[in-house]
């Protein structure tokens, strides 16, 4: 057990250091979502005039989006890094050692979780700087950090699965537009009950990303909402569990081929 822990620790350390040493992995997930939310919040401020809009500040409403968008970047980063390990032969060399498959996956995802946590702290600080006050206070901010780290880990594991299946960094990059669909066809810009187009409202309702966004959003603008939070944690856990299963299956196949 302690040997597995050591393996996880070593791989996690490598994953974290490798990520933090590459500005192109750290800076865009911090800058791009905050830039997008700033621009969108300014352009969509008139939305708050719609009857039934839940807050007078569109920035507070939209602030949940960077947390989930940052997690989407985790998918890309985690997948690209693991794909690079496959392409460079590092995974083949690891396969010759007594390393456990679970240690590889957990070590890999630990790096993603650390980055997800750092991103979330940055977004919370950004919110405070631009004057957004969390309805749930400091405790709510802490829950957001936990939830965002869980979401990052879930999507990071999804990235690991894609990398193990394709073995190509370029293929991981090519999946980015498809991941973006889930963000755009969600309640990111409008509460679901105010979406006027029926098919879009339906798509947003079946899209799990809507529930992740609404969970984070509830802590910022509504207060403690057990249903929204429960759904967000459940969806994140379900995506994580499914991704772990898929990644473990793909890893077994990848190691068998070596």
């Amino acid at each position, binding site marked *: 057990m302690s040997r597995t822990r050591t393996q996880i620790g070593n791989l996690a350390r490598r994953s974290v250091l490798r990520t933090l040493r590459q500005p*192109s992995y750290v800076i865009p997930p911090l800058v791009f979502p905050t830039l997008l939310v700033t621009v969108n919040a300014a352009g969509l*401020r008139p939305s708050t005039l719609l009857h039934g809009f839940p807050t007078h500040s569109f920035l507070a409403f939209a602030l949940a989006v960077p947390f989930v968008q940052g997690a989407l970047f985790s998918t890309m980063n985690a997948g690209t890094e693991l794909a690079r390990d496959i392409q460079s032969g590092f995974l083949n060399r690891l396969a010759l050692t007594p390393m456990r498959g679970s240690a590889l996956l957990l070590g890999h995802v630990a790096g993603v979780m650390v980055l997800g946590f750092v991103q979330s702290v940055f977004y919370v600080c950004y919110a405070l700087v631009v004057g957004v006050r969390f309805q749930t206070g400091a405790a709510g901010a802490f829950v957001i950090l936990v939830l965002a780290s869980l979401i990052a880990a879930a999507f990071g594991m999804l990235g690991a699965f894609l990398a193990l299946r394709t073995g190509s960094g370029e293929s991981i990059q090519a999946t980015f537009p498809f991941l973006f669909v889930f963000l755009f066809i969600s309640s*990111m810009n409008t509460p679901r009950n105010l979406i006027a187009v029926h098919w879009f409202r339906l798509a947003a309702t079946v899209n799990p990303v809507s529930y992740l966004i609404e969970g984070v959003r509830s802590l910022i603008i509504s207060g403690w909402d057990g249903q929204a939070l429960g759904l967000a944690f459940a969806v994140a856990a379900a995506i994580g569990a499914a991704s772990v299963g898929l990644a473990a299956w793909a890893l077994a196949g990848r190691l068998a081929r070596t």
Partner: protein
Amino acid sequence: MRGAGLRSYRSVALGVAWRTAHNALTTPNIVIPTLAFPFFFFTAFAGGLSQLERLPGFHFAQGYTAFQFVFVTLQAAAFGGVFTGFGIARDFEHGFARRLLLAAPNRSAVVVGYALAAVARWALVAALLTAVAFAVGMQVGGGGVELPGLYGLAILLNCAALLWSTGVAMRLRTIQAGPAMQMPVFLALFFAPVYVPLPLLSGWIHAVARVNPVTYLLEAGRSFVSGGTVHAGVAFGAAAALACLFAVWALRGLRRAEAAGA
């Protein structure tokens, strides 16, 4: 330039254009984002934000789908230019651009070739986008004869964005210059009245949008879709001025690349 010189110039421009367009349209990693992103934006904006047309002061008779169609068409044009710029940077990184510059008697033909490819790339997206927009019931005012005005603006914007990206690519000569090409274009597009008309914006975004040339392109484009010609002269003037300005930027970048022995 006449006779053999003109033939040689045309040959280089068309050769570069064909190669660039062929790469862009047959490489899945390039063609998928090229086609997918405009449709994502169109779907997300026209579908997810259509309730904004109920806002007091929102007057656009053709509906929110047409309102957003104009933005997405112009956005696709601008990003078509930027994405072609990525290809130029990649050509430099892989050493192909060096061989290209050595082989071309008149090197500005290389830039013209890239520009032709960018327009071809945008034309494909615009054709599909227009077909989808009409299929989902987009309304167009007037006799529809004003619509080509929107496409004319989009082509000028496409060339301006391509020339901007070319200038950056030829100075930095690495694909890592991608954000430097993309971010200013992204900001210029989104610091305009994207979601609601200009009078409904307030605060800093209203002040920025008022001096942003893209605002005039959007307003003229939306007017074309309504069958009008509001701000048409200003919009074409602004788009042509941007294209000329960035043509100088691109050609000076070409000289830098030549001087660097790229």
